[in-house]
């Protein structure tokens, strides 16, 4: 089959706000289906703090691993420190700890922002430079497409920057046309913001729990901010009949098309345990069939005319980001919304 050439490339992000709702499982099926249908595609695992897509795709070897070095890590020269406590008071990250009466900086928390050394009267603070913050890895999957994966070192900040680099690598490998399929992290912080920046389409994954609904609303607010056209997939849709209608109502009200529902299926964790996408491990299982149908819909109905789709479902007015800045004396202000 020959899929349409998509030029310039389109960015499709799978996101959920909450983790563990089946995002990587769906992304894997989507990737396989797009590849099968002849789409030129690169998949990017943008969950740099907990990258999983390579496991679902059975990748065991990387073709290329690039270390990412950046930032600084502060440390205190014990013999110079007068224990004035200023650094501890001023560190916004709370990274300065007092251990056995000595001031030490926790390397799993420090961002290297320089503040402590600027306030330290005896200049007792030094930095380690070129700290390894993570890796960008590339692999050819067994399914005929390339995966770019990112991983931060445990306890290191700036995963947003690594995600941006991983996406840039993906775009470079993709070239002037095709689909960049991005599996975003859980949450709404810097990694997710980097995942969404520059994307046109997103698939939001939710499950019928009140927790997931709450997280869906938050991630949707972000896609609105970035002017992205969302689609919704409800995973394990049959586990709760009371919450399901609440999710459907939200989607309806917010003009988010529901492009499919996947039933709860014990085959899914079994597939994960074997490092195979559900459609390969158990193609006839209900979850595999439902996921496949969704992937085919995206491949056949959404991507070939993604501009029309985008125009139809993108937010009419992007949700603005309005910072709440308080001038001195305004600290008691209450909520703005």
């Amino acid at each position: 089959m020959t899929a349409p050439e998509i030029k310039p490339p389109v960015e499709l992000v799978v996101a959920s706000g909450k983790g563990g709702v089946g995002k990587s499982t769906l992304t894997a099926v989507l990737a396989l289906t797009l590849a099968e249908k002849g789409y030129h595609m690169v998949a990017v695992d943008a969950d740099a703090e907990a990258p999983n897509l390579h496991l679902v795709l059975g990748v065991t070897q990387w073709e290329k691993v690039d270390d990412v070095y950046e930032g600084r890590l502060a440390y205190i020269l014990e013999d110079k420190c007068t224990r004035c406590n200023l650094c501890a008071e001023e560190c916004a990250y709370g990274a300065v700890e007092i251990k056995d009466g000595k001031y030490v900086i926790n390397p799993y928390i420090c961002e290297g922002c320089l503040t402590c050394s600027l306030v330290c009267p005896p200049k007792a603070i030094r930095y380690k430079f070129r700290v390894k913050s993570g890796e960008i890895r590339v692999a050819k999957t067994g399914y005929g497409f390339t995966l770019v994966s990112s991983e931060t070192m445990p306890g290191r900040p700036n995963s947003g920057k690594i995600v941006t680099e991983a996406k840039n690598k993906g775009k470079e490998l993709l070239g002037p046309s095709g689909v960049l399929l991005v599996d975003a992290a859980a949450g709404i912080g810097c990694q997710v913001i980097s995942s969404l920046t520059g994307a046109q389409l997103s698939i939001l994954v939710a499950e019928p729990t009140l927790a997931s609904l709450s997280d869906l609303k938050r991630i949707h607010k972000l896609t609105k901010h970035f002017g992205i056209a969302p689609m919704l997939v409800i995973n394990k849709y049959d586990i709760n009949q009371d919450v399901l209608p609440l999710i459907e109502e939200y989607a309806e009200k917010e003009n988010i098309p529901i492009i499919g529902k996947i039933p709860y299926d014990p085959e899914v964790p079994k597939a994960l345990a074997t490092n195979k996408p559900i459609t390969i491990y158990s193609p006839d299982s209900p979850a595999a069939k439902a996921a496949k149908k969704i992937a085919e819909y995206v491949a056949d109905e959404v991507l070939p005319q993604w501009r029309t789709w985008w125009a139809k479902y993108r937010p009419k007015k992007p949700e603005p980001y309005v910072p709440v800045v308080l001038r001195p004396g305004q600290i008691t202000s209450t909520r703005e919304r």
Partner: protein
Amino acid sequence: MPPRFVVAVTGGKGGTGKSFVATNIAVLMSRHVELTLADLDVEAPNDHLLLGLQGLENEEPIAIFFPIIDYKKCTACGACAKVCDTGAIVMAKGTPPMVMPRLCSGCKACLYACPYKAIDPEGRRVVGYSYSTLVKRGGGFRLITGILREGEEHTPPAIVVAKQRALKETPSDAMLIVDTGAGTGNGISAAIQEAELVIAVTEPTPLGLHDLRAILEIARGMEKRIWMVINKAGIASHEKHLETAKEYGVEKVFLVPYDPEAAKIYARGTPVVEECPSCEASKALNEIAQSLLVEALEKGVRRK
């Protein structure tokens, strides 16, 4: 004085059941001892939903430093832009600096770098809100919740502020249970910082195992005692998880079996240990709470 006993529930991967474990343990333990639960998953706080709360109370803004520049004093020397690690200060040649609010982490480096004292030390930006709500479940306990505003991306400073509130509002003879977000970044390290004991919640899949290692790396590096909970036990083999537990010196491993009944109750927003005490999952959660209770009482946490 910090609380007598601080325990952090974390796990690396999202959706393994951190909040499920934390809320249920809090309900069970609150019947016996004074405690506070802190939901520091500021990107996706759900504990109040799992506890079926109607609303959150006692709102306070999470206000972090934000540089407000007095352009009458500013000489456009560029020192602030030079130290700003996040690229939040932009300066076109010869013009005074401009601060991009979203990029700013509130670190104050610019404040201390400015030679002309042109930056106001009292400027603040609200990146989220924290709440303190009395939960009338179990024996009753306080829930502190931190919520990041949508569009803000600097999570760790927000976590630090919410955590400080939780520490402040927990009596020194009580215990504090911290529920962290997903991931393994420095925001998670900040959330578990005061904890003596870290409970790593994982699930029996290779995905769970992969992320578990990263979180154990942090917990061990920060010299924490570690317990492990394998949630949804039975859906796949957890042999490798047990090996990993040994490798990292995990003191205790608990298995919470996969329980469809518990999953349904979870979806509705009620703690399974109250709704279905005889469920398999509840029995396992009870076991964890009992073990924690022994520790808490040894440390002199106030009984109810």
